[in-house]
């Protein structure tokens, strides 16, 4: 009986794996190629067609890139901005989500509807007025200018609320009986319970903030304040001076850290998704 099943499964497994492998190659190739190109001498990148591995690998591109541009500083900026943002935004989102999920207060539905509506505001619409505000606060070219506006993350609140709806009220009720304040309940009970969802949200926030392009473009003025994604976009812009190898280095430096973080954290993320069964 079991061998029959196993044999029936084989073609299905093979098809599935084939499809998945093709798809995986499609996903991985652009990134892998960019990393490989960063080790390829500039004239070899496009003169010899496309190989995955360079014929004459070199570190020259890296030397040039780090020498000509403050890439390490830019990396540091990205890490700082993304890190501070994620901590702050996660906290605020969880807090607001807790209120929307577990409290009943006047205008709650209307406010939640407004919250969802805020996702529809186009970023391009807000950027010039926001810049005016930033300059009045003397925040132009500072880290705050690219962190604070995004702290109001409607998506984050929505996401956490969905998760918190699945937390049984009993946990919270028993803490209320013990006389805990709302904030205490939030901090000591709800947050630990939400850890998987917070991990997923945190990753999404880090990625989103790291990859911001338009906002830092307008708000940040010194190349030493640029995030690494913005710095990379500045590399090829002057067509007069574009060694493609250096451009590929820029791309690699901008993309690789997030990939590494993700690979390290992916267990947590997967666990977070699996634990979505809590909702049942």
């Amino acid at each position: 009986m079991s061998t029959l099943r196993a044999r029936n499964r084989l073609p299905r497994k093979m098809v599935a794996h084939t499809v998945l492998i093709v798809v995986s190659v499609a996903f991985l190739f652009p990134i892998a190629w960019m990393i490989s190109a960063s080790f390829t001498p500039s004239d070899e990148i496009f003169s010899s067609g496309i190989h995955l591995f360079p014929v004459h690998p070199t570190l020259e591109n890296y030397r040039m890139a780090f020498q000509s541009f403050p890439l390490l500083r830019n990396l540091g900026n990205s890490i700082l901005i993304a890190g501070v943002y994620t901590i702050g935004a996660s906290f605020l989102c969880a807090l607001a989500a807790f209120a929307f999920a577990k409290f009943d207060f006047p205008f709650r539905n209307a406010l939640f509807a407004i919250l969802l509506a805020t996702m529809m505001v186009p970023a391009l619409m807000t950027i010039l007025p926001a810049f005016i505000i930033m300059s009045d606060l003397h925040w132009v070219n500072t880290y705050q200018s690219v962190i604070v506006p995004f702290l109001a993350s409607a998506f984050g609140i929505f996401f956490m609320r969905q998760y918190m709806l699945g937390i049984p009220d009993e946990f919270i009720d028993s803490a209320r009986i013990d006389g805990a304040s709302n904030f205490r309940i939030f901090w000591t009970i709800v947050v630990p319970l939400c850890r998987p969802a917070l991990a997923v949200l945190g990753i999404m926030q880090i990625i989103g903030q790291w990859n911001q392009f338009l906002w830092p473009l307008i708000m940040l003025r010194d190349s030493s304040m640029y995030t690494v994604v913005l710095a990379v976009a500045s590399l090829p812009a002057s067509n007069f001076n574009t060694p493609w190898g250096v451009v590929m280095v820029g791309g690699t430096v901008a993309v690789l850290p997030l990939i590494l973080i993700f690979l390290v954290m992916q267990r947590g993320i997967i666990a977070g998704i699996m634990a979505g069964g809590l909702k049942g």
Partner: protein
Amino acid sequence: MWKARSAYLFIAPFFVLFAIFGVFPIGYEFVMSLFSWSGVGTPHFVGLTNFTTLFSDDLFWQSLSNTIILWLGHIFILVALALGLALLLDAPWLRGRAIYRAIAYLPNTAAIAAMALSFQLIFDYQFGILNNVLEVIGIPRTDWLGSDMWSKPAIILLNIWNGVGWYMLIILAGLQSLDSQLFEAAAIDGAGPWRRFFNVTLPGLRPTLFFVFVVETIGSLQLFTEPYVLTKGGPSNSSLTLAMYLYQNGFEYFRIGYASAMAVVLFVLTVLTTLILGLIWRGNLFTRSELSA
């Protein structure tokens, strides 16, 4: 439920921030759309002239149609792919699911602005790997970035490559939360895998898919980065989106009043589309159970 005072405090940071960085800019743009301003000096009041010019501007209509074509052209493929991948990666009989999931999500972590350079070379007519692979399969080489027919597919490809992993994870989470008892009951009733899919899985995924659809639609209507970095709106404005045209008018031609009028139109369009989607999909936008759970 509990005392409302702390609830208001908890949600206050969001609404205060939104008032500053959301409400004020929207109001500013609505007001500015009635003026003509080059950024310095004094704005001139022109009333609704910006809007009348806008609606007789061929390029505006082209950017609008480009945006809509790009939206519809990619969203169904994206959702279908994400759903398919999620189903595959939910199957318990598949080994190595965790690895595939990680790989599928990886493109979403890469900044489009940075990957665009790599993709410019991938889409290259002569040397691009995409054309090389297509040629081996038997499909003729296409000028992805250089012809006005293929610039939109190129953007759609980049968009899907970047986004499908994230939506796959969302749908996967939705799948995981479905009650397995429903499936067992259906199997006992004799329903095969396809019937189980249509009668149990899809209905169960309805809120998730709705969420995916709405979020991606909102993002699609405001599409800027992909056309900006990959094709710069070309060739011949074939990939010029509404958001890009807005940017051009505001930051390249310095017609801030005109750009504000466009921003107003974009905002109204987004709101209307979302409301209509909600009406179509769910009967009304938010069911009672959704809000007061």
